[in-house]
């Protein structure tokens, strides 16, 4: 402003100032605009009376102060307020967020105390019953439902990680039509119009394509729609389907039936390429692994079972087995046929095309099976052809197992179909122009359908494609309508477990983005389009529930328990019929390719899940990628090195993938995991791995023949968290000896193992003299700390029970807010998991035995990490827990260096995601989200201990109101660590070791109890129960020659390999 100060003074001084009102100012300004407006404003300032106007416009208090200098009280008030406001402005401005306490507090909600709700995760092979933790109505952690027979409280990796999918920022958040935003009402209208049009033809052009439907309500809804539109058709497609088993049961029994195994009753188990111990891709895994391991805990008098595995890959089942034979997938049918022949009275010599060793294996196996008739099981793998499933059933029949260890009941899917044939039929109809409306309920067929069907091209011939999905994926790109789906934690539904037991899928949270479920979408086509999933569900169960009494109270109980009673499929009395199917062995020199579902991302549906991407695959310990996996000899004979990219031609189609050498694989066989190589998965999954679907056709759904395999000359870095495999010039040397890591693990007494015979003679073998001795507690200058009082937390891990399934690893990550670091960081060894499962291979690397050692903080009583921390950021509690004080940690990493178990994890960079809003509700509010520069490690879930302690103390205070001497201690079972909770085989036991009756004390009291690296006087609170293996010595053992002692004679490699690291040693 150009005002002259003198002029202003003059105006102020002028006693007769004319009045100016706001109205006049407004009028004056209303005619002005632009520059003129500002000029008018300036003129106004000079106007007499303006000052008075301003004064009148000021807050009353200020004027009062000026007018009434005596009002001290008001003056002080003003001063106080301005001081306070001055302080406010100095702070960072906080966003305006209304913080409103509950006006009506929800019943039973105590802020800060989580609640648990029973629900169920639908999965194509059967539902996983769950209890989900809810912190103020946001689900934060998934646990198994202990009441459910299919879980007993255990979970697998998929269930544990599924909560991350709920909060995935890449989820589809809106529906669209031809990429334009649409809402549900628009879609509703469109379907209503279609229904009118389709009514005439009976829905001749209407097709539904769903994933395997295990929801009775959804199945009944679809069937109702099919009744309304009799010409419409419904197909199911899962890339990892059980067509082979279904076909076999059709052939054998004339109906669909599912074998259910009773592993706890089996003395001898033969797995024919069936990986039933490594994850949910095998139906009933949680229950089966628990039952199987119950015969290997050796705490009762029940004899140890024996597992034979003949497999085409290195799985945890094979690694754990007592006798294993690597065999190409294509050779397993002839093998089973030979075995069936021998059980039927044939001899091994009659088995054509087998080597002497294989015949020896067959003979001993047949003998052992015969000796255990009615107490043995033969399991066939899902990726094997129907012939093998038929042979397995016939062998079980021949051994008298059916009805004892193997029973048949209904398949888990409501409407079993031949999915591949159905999909072919659908594509044929689409190509013929017979389809005008294709409704795809979840799933991603463009990505997963057999490549020869060219599903996306067929979609182009359909007038309207509707795709319901939580993600915008490959299929969305070819669909006109995209309806954003709801996660199973957001919607009502129901699902069947592997044995048919139904559970309600109960939502834990309202749909975050208003997504819709398949129930709603299917309902649109029905007569009652606005039925909600809840109504559909209750309607169905009102009609089909088998409980007597009032439905509503029943339903509440089902919800609470997570089980709908009396829904388990009835046992069918069936006996296989027909002769042995023809076996067509593959040429010995041909290379086969075997497709398998991925142990961590399944068929690709978890591709965008960071926890699963960064979960090391069992045995392989590979993260973030798949690879062309082959044996040492196959790679060597072809001249491939680890990480060389090879071009694989199958049936005229090619795939480029890096080589990964896997110990114990059969020669001339390549395994490819499905689910990788996606471009439309999301920010996590895009670009990781190689798309095996590109060479998977309907002719070769599981096993194909490689026409050509050659090096491209490029290489690709794989992120392997534990390096034991390599095949370069140096690697050959290591291979010719043994696995250096495995041998060293034995030499260092990390693994202590005996055969079952030796164990029976000497149960204390884990403390034999050749093992390193623990120093005596008295051998120290310092007075010992008295740990004999109060709670003393400890853990025991049964090495014989661990199947290496990784459920604990993901459970730990979910519970403790562990970040995902990404492939690049994993490659250089900066994995942030607090719990890992170390694998050690022993014996001949063509067919090694693996030992799984879950490794987490051992909570040493003499922890080497504690005295070296210069700031005391890691200290010991009186209850024996080695803990971290994150606030105090400055990140010297000395504790990491000095930790003999290398279980400490350092935030080298800012690994935690503090920004993404959708990930914030996911965090466990009881665990700090660690920032950069801080060391972290397992805390024995100290937040769970403290929650139980608070609960006990509150109850004690209540009790003491009536009886002052009353005590209430934390009871056995009240503290369950996240890893322990998830473990399907109860390998992990945690509790108070001061209580002699606690499970952990009893477990530790076993003679096989030993500590790792205890000779350096760490005195760990975590101990291991030594391994016992039960090989059939007639075959000989793959770890040592027959007749040798396991305890003393396990071969070791004393010299370090000159190169043990594919990562290379450079600096």
């Amino acid at each position: 402003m150009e005002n002259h100060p003198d002029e202003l003074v003059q105006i102020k001084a002028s006693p007769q100032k004319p009045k100016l009102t706001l109205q006049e100012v407004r009028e004056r300004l209303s005619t002005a605009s632009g520059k003129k407006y500002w000029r008018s404003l300036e003129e106004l300032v000079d106007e007499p009376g303006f000052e008075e106007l301003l004064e009148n416009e000021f807050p009353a208090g200020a004027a009062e102060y000026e007018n009434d200098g005596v009002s001290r009280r008001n003056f002080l008030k003003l001063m106080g307020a301005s001081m306070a406001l001055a302080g406010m402005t100095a702070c960072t401005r906080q966003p305006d967020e209304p913080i409103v306490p509950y006006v009506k507090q929800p019943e039973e909600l105590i802020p800060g105390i989580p609640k648990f709700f029973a629900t169920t995760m639908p999965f194509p092979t059967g539902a996983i019953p769950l209890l989900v933790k809810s912190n103020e109505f946001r689900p934060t952690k998934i646990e198994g439902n202990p009441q459910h027979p299919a879980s007993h409280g255990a979970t697998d990796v998929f269930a544990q990680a599924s909560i991350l999918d709920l909060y995935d920022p890449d989820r589809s958040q809106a529906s669209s039509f031809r990429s334009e935003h649409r809402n549900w009402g628009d879609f509703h209208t469109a379907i209503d119009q279609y229904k009118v049009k389709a009514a005439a033809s009976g829905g001749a052009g209407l097709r539904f394509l769903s994933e395997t439907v295990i929801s009775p309500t959804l199945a009944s809804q679809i069937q109702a729609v099919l009744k309304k539109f009799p010409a419409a058709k419904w197909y199911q497609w899962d890339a990892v389907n059980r067509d082979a088993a279904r076909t076999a049961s059709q052939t054998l029994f004339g109906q669909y039936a599912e074998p259910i195994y009773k592993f706890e009753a089996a003395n001898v188990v033969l797995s024919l390429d069936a990986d039933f111990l490594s994850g949910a891709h095998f139906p009933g895994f949680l229950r089966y692994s628990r039952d199987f391991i119950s015969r290997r805990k050796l705490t009762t008098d029940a004899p140890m079972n024996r597992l034979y595995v003949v497999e085409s890959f290195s799985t945890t089942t094979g690694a754990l087995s007592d006798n294993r034979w690597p065999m190409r997938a294509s050779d397993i049918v002839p093998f089973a046929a030979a075995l069936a022949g021998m059980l039927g009275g044939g001899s091994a010599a009659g088995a054509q095309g087998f080597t002497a060793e294989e015949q020896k294996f067959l003979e001993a196996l047949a003998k052992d099976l015969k000796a255990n008739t009615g107490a043995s099981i033969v399991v066939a793998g899902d990726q094997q052809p129907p012939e093998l499933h038929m042979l397995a059933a016939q062998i079980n029949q021949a051994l008298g197992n059916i009805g004892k260890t193997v029973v048949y009941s209904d398949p888990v899917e409501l409407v079993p179909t031949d999915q591949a044939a159905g999909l072919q039929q659908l594509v044929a109809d689409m190509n013929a122009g017979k389809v005008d409306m294709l409704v795809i309920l979840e799933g991603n067929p463009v990505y997963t359908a057999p490549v020869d069907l060219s599903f996306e091209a067929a979609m182009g011939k359909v007038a309207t494609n509707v795709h319901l999905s939580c993600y915008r994926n490959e299929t969305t790109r070819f669909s006109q309508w995209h309806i954003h789906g709801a996660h199973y934690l957001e919607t009502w539904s129901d699902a069947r477990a592997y044995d048919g037991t139904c559970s309600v899928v109960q939502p834990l949270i309202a749909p975050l983005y208003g997504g819709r479920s398949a129930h709603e979408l299917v309902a649109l086509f029905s007569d009652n389009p606005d039925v909600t999933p809840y109504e559909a569900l209750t309607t169905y169960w009102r009609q089909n529930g088998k409980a007597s009494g009032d439905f509503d109270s029943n339903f509440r109980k089902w919800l609470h328990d997570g089980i709908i009673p009396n829904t388990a499929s009835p046992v069918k009395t069936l006996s296989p019929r027909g002769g042995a199917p023809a076996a067509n062995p593959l040429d010995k020199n041909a290379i086969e390719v075997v497709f398998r579902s991925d142990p961590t991302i399944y068929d690709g549906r978890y591709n965008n899940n960071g926890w699963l991407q960064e979960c090391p695959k069992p045995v392989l310990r590979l993260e973030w990628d798949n690879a062309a996996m082959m044996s040492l000899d196959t790679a060597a004979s072809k001249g491939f090195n680890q990480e060389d990219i090879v071009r694989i031609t199958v049936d005229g189609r090619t795939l480029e993938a890096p080589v990964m050498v896997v110990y114990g694989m059969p020669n001339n066989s390549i395994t490819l995991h499905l689910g990788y190589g996606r471009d439309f998965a999301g920010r996590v999954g895009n670009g990781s791995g190689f798309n095996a679907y590109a060479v998977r056709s309907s002719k070769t759904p599981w096993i194909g023949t490689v026409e050509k395999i050659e090096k491209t000359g490029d290489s690709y870095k794989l992120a392997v968290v534990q390096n034991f495999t390599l095949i370069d010039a140096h690697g050959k040397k290591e291979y010719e000896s043994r696995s250096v890591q495995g041998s060293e693990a034995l030499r260092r007494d990390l693994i202590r193992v005996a055969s079952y015979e030796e164990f029976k003679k000497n149960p204390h073998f884990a403390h034999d003299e050749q093992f390193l001795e623990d120093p005596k507690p008295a051998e120290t200058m310092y007075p010992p700390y008295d740990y004999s009082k109060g709670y003393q937390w400890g853990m025991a891990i049964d090495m014989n029970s661990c199947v290496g399934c990784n459920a604990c690893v993901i459970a730990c990550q979910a519970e403790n807010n562990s970040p995902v670091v990404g492939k690049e960081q994993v490659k250089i060894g900066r994995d942030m998991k607090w719990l890992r499962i170390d694998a050690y291979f022993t014996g001949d690397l063509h067919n090694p035995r693996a030992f799984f050692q879950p490794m987490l903080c051992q909570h040493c009583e003499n922890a080497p990490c504690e005295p070296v921390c210069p700031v005391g950021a890691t200290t010991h509690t009186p209850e024996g827990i080695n803990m971290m004080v994150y606030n105090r940690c400055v990140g010297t990493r000395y504790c990491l260096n000095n930790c003999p178990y290398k279980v400490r994890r350092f935030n080298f960079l800012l690994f935690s995601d503090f920004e993404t809003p959708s990930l914030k509700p996911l965090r466990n509010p009881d665990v700090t989200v660690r920032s950069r520069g801080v060391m972290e490690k397992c805390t024995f879930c100290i937040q769970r201990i403290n929650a139980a302690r608070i609960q006990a103390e509150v109850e004690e205070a209540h009790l003491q109101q009536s009886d002052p001497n009353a005590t209430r201690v934390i009871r056995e079972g009240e503290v369950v660590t996240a890893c322990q909770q998830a473990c399907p085989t109860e390998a992990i036991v945690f509790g108070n070791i001061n209580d002699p009756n606690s499970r952990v004390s009893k477990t530790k009291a076993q003679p096989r109890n030993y500590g790792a690296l205890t000779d350096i006087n760490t005195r760990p609170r975590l101990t291991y129960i030594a391994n016992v293996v039960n090989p059939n010595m007639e075959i000989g053992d793959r770890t040592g020659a027959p007749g040798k002692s396991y305890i003393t004679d396990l071969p070791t490699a004393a010299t370090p390999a000159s190169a043990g690291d594919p990562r290379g040693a450079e600096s």
Partner: protein
Amino acid sequence: MATKGLTDLPPSQRPYLADPPVIAPGHTFASVTEKIMRTVLTGRTPLGWIGGVLIAFGIVNILMVAFGYLFWKGVGIWGITVPVGWGFAIVNFVWWIGIGHAGTLISAILLLLKQSWRTSINRAAEAMTLFAVMCAGMFPLVHTGRPWLAVYWLFPLPLTMGVWPQFRSPLIWDVFAVSTYFTVSLLFWFTGLIPDLATLRDHAKYRITKMIYGVLAMGWRGSARHWARYETAYLLLAGLSTPLVLSVHTVVSWDFAVSVIPGWHTTIFPPYFVAGAIYSGFAMVLTLMIPIRAAYGMKDFITMRHLQNMAKVMLATGLIVAYGYFMEAFMAWYSGNRFELYTFKNRAFGPMGYFYWMLITCNIALPQLLWLRGFRNSPVLLWMMSIVVNMGMWLERFVIVVTSLHRDFLPSSWGTYKATRWDYAVYIGTLGFFTMMFLLFIRVLPMISIFEVRALLPQSRINSLAQENPQ
């Protein structure tokens, strides 16, 4: 100086040659003062010096960028990982601290042992010590995950919270040892400078230089009383510094020896670290002095006698270090400890074995050439050898820190270490910082102690007395 005729004889028949003199003949008090002072009080800065400082300053900027990025992103920009939690930063820390040993050793211990030849090199060696300790001091701070908290938590401020550092941790001992060493070395160096600062003050032409040197000289007038107190103070500081020479690297070695890691957990570490420190310190003095004596024409003061003596010290400490290596390996075998034994086999024959053999070559094999008098008489060869020893001592720390960690107790956690460009940037950056500081030093302060060298002259009474009563 050797005469020509004698060198023609075969070595076995050569008569014993007296060591070359400490100061070249022909100097007077005035010529000594003039010659040393001229490098400082000259108005003409040598072009080579300007070029050197510019290059060094450029490298210091690399250091600043590397530190800036480090604080922005975190220590994850370096190659450290699990299981190798310490990498270049700690290697460099130990290496620089080791280099920092020579200065105080030359100044204090040789003073107490009345090794008068030390006077020509002690000033520069002490300055080198200070700069080396500065370089070293950067690393423990910046290598922490949260350096802003490290300062706060590591110094035991008397806080009302009562939260003290963990006094059992060798890292806390490090904080005390290194900061004490730096403080005492600085005081010792500064005390030794006072008479020379007064000389500079008296000779300075410009008012501003006069003022600066005047303030620094703290009113030194050279009175007998000043000299008496000065001598006492200097001797006391020398006495104080002497145990520090031994203690600092002992404490640094405890960083490793106190741990349980095979390859670190070794009682021989303290003496062998100290010997190694002196070894590398003398090597660094040679690396600096040989070019400087040539560039500044100081061959009269830093004579072949000095170079030879330093070479002999290197040979002796090198042999101690070699003994240390041998005993480490011997004890690994003799103890029968399977972890220890594996570590030593792995160190020599494992994936990082070539570092070990480079280390043996640089620190043990090649320095045996120092037995040859001809070798010791050649400044060029000595300079090359000093570089070799510096490299060897860096490799030694690398081998100890990295190869011990990369394969320790748990085979599943074996990994490797690969330094990143930021590791190199920080290392090279500190070399630049060191060079720059040293160049600044020789420009503004007398690099050789004027008054002490004057005392070495035959004219000096002290010297003549010393010659009358040899110890």
